[in-house]
């Protein structure tokens, strides 16, 4: 569920970078204050572990398919939320650089989606809550599964929002949600089961690792109140920024579309029970295009709205097409000639 650079706008990318940087800064401060320096190699090596284990496929019982470890929840369980978040961040940095998974602009989104919800929402609110009366194999199992699943649902929903606010895709909100959430429910179950199995095993063999959260009590001690307050603040700020952005940007259309189709989704009597059939229906009956023209008319006083609709005229299109082809040709020639020059230089150097 990595967000790709191509699917986000600079504003959304930037906002999520800022949010991630904020959470990371908080985490670094917390980790530095609370704990001894032993955590650094531990975080590094654990990050590498998650990276490596992500590549092992585990069979999902009864489905014949296989899944792998996501890691956010496991890191939170083993390292505590702050160190877990930072570790997840470095894993994603390396993936973005070496595998082009996600991308550098979308890195903020990805770190947030995969790290924030598990480490700072479901870990303290669900996992810790289930463990409030002490650890047991069963509690660890249910806690790990539940928080992994819910964490991933948050993450998937976040992906939907970030994509839609970026305005690169025409996919209506409702459809997108209907696509993303169930898929990630399945993935979440897989991840939850593997996380639970691993955490359960560690609990059985080396309880002190889970018990102390490796760094003693401090790491788990994020108070729920703080989390909630923090969440509220984040919600208000991002909400504000988004709505500002929505009104100040031609892509505001998408915002409106999101609103309307979102409402429709809620009002639909079949509700969640609508399945693929209804998605198909929507694809057929909600031609986005007419939808948009209506919106545009209502927004006609918005001067910028026009820019979102580049003039369609044969002349410019033809010029664009011809110029485009020439540009690509030119690029090809440039590349080729650099290559030739280099080759010749090398040959003469030898």
């Amino acid at each position, binding site marked *: 569920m990595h967000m*790709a*650079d191509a699917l986000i706008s600079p504003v959304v990318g930037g906002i999520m970078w800022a949010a991630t940087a904020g959470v990371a800064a908080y985490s*670094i401060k917390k980790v530095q204050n609370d704990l001894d320096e*032993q955590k650094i190699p531990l975080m590094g090596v654990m990050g590498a572990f998650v990276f490596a*284990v992500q590549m092992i496929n585990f069979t999902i*019982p009864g489905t014949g398919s296989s899944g792998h470890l996501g890691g956010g929840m496991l890191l939170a369980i083993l390292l505590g939320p702050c160190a877990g978040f930072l570790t997840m961040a470095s894993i994603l940095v390396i993936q973005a650089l*070496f595998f082009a998974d996600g991308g550098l602009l979308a890195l903020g989104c990805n770190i947030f989606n995969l790290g924030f919800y598990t480490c700072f929402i479901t870990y303290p609110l669900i996992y810790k809550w289930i463990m409030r009366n002490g650890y047991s194999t069963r509690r660890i199992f249910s806690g790990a599964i539940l928080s992994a699943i819910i964490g991933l649902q948050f993450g998937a929903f976040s992906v939907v929002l970030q994509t839609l606010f970026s305005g690169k895709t025409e996919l209506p909100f409702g459809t997108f949600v209907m696509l993303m959430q169930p898929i990630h429910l399945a993935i979440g179950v897989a991840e939850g089961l593997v996380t639970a199995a*691993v955490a359960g095993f560690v609990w059985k063999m080396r309880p002190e690792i889970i018990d102390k959260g490796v760094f003693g009590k401090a790491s788990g001690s994020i108070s729920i109140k703080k989390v909630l307050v923090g969440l509220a603040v984040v919600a208000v700020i991002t909400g504000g920024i988004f709505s500002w952005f929505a009104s100040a940007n031609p892509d505001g259309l998408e915002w409106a579309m999101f609103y309307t189709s979102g409402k429709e989704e809620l009002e639909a009597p079949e509700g969640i029970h609508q399945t693929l059939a209804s998605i198909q229906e929507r694809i057929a009956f909600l031609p986005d295009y007419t939808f948009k023209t209506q919106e545009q008319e209502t927004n006609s006083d918005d001067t910028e709205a026009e820019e979102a*609709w580049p003039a369609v005229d044969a002349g410019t299109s033809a010029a664009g097409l011809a110029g485009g082809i020439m540009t690509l040709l030119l690029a090809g020639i440039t590349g080729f000639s650099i290559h030739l020059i280099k080759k010749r230089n090398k040959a003469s150097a030898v």
Partner: protein
Amino acid sequence: MIVMSNIIKSLYNIRMLDELAEKRTFIHNIHPLIKVLTTCVYLTVTVSFDKYELSGLLPLIFYPVVMITLAEIPMIPILKRMLVVIPLIIGIGIFNPLFDHKPMVVLPWIQISGGWISFFSIMFKGGFTILAALILIATTGMTRIASALRMIRVPRLFVLQLLLTYRYISVLMEEAGRTWNAYMLRAPGQKSVNPKAWGPLAGQMLMRTYDRAQRVYQAMGLRGFNGEYNPGDVKKVTVKDILYFTCWAAFFAVSRYFNLPALIGEVVTGVMK
């Protein structure tokens, strides 16, 4: 049946990029911080194009083309890597032609819906951004990127942890690969790890990893580490680096504000008329 596990294959991908970063070309010698900045500007400019602005986007292809050739990066593995990632982008982008039927390009003989235009624009952006990230790492390497991060004041703790993660990925992926092979040798016919072995297999590896982390920490402590990592000397940004950045930035800015292909096209079609 998996013969050589994809774990080891991924490891080669990492190592290949790492080896490319050891080359010594003009591009490799540019200051890492400058390369990081240039990449950021490029990415931002690329994704800032409106979804229907397809032709204006095209000149940006010069960046990857020039970089790949100047830095002598082999095309095949990079393109392979791209093929792995791009389906995810297609998966989302393909909905645009389904939902957006507004006719956009109207020529006497051809008409394309807006959905297809925005689809191709997403594809190009996807290609460009993926290439930019791979080019950055293949010409800079992890260590130098880390030093660039330090220069922009990313906290030491995070940078050191990033480097350690990177370093141990090699060690642990090899271990994971061997464990996977050992599993498969005694479990012929299975495609992936059976639920009963999940916990023990990953858990066992985790605890070994945990113990290793303790040893690594001790090894660091024995050599005087006290939480403050000193990266040694850092290269200074030179005039050449600034020039490099300015040139690219200027090019990106021009591409962003003028639709170069349209201009060229107009000239050409004008001449033809």
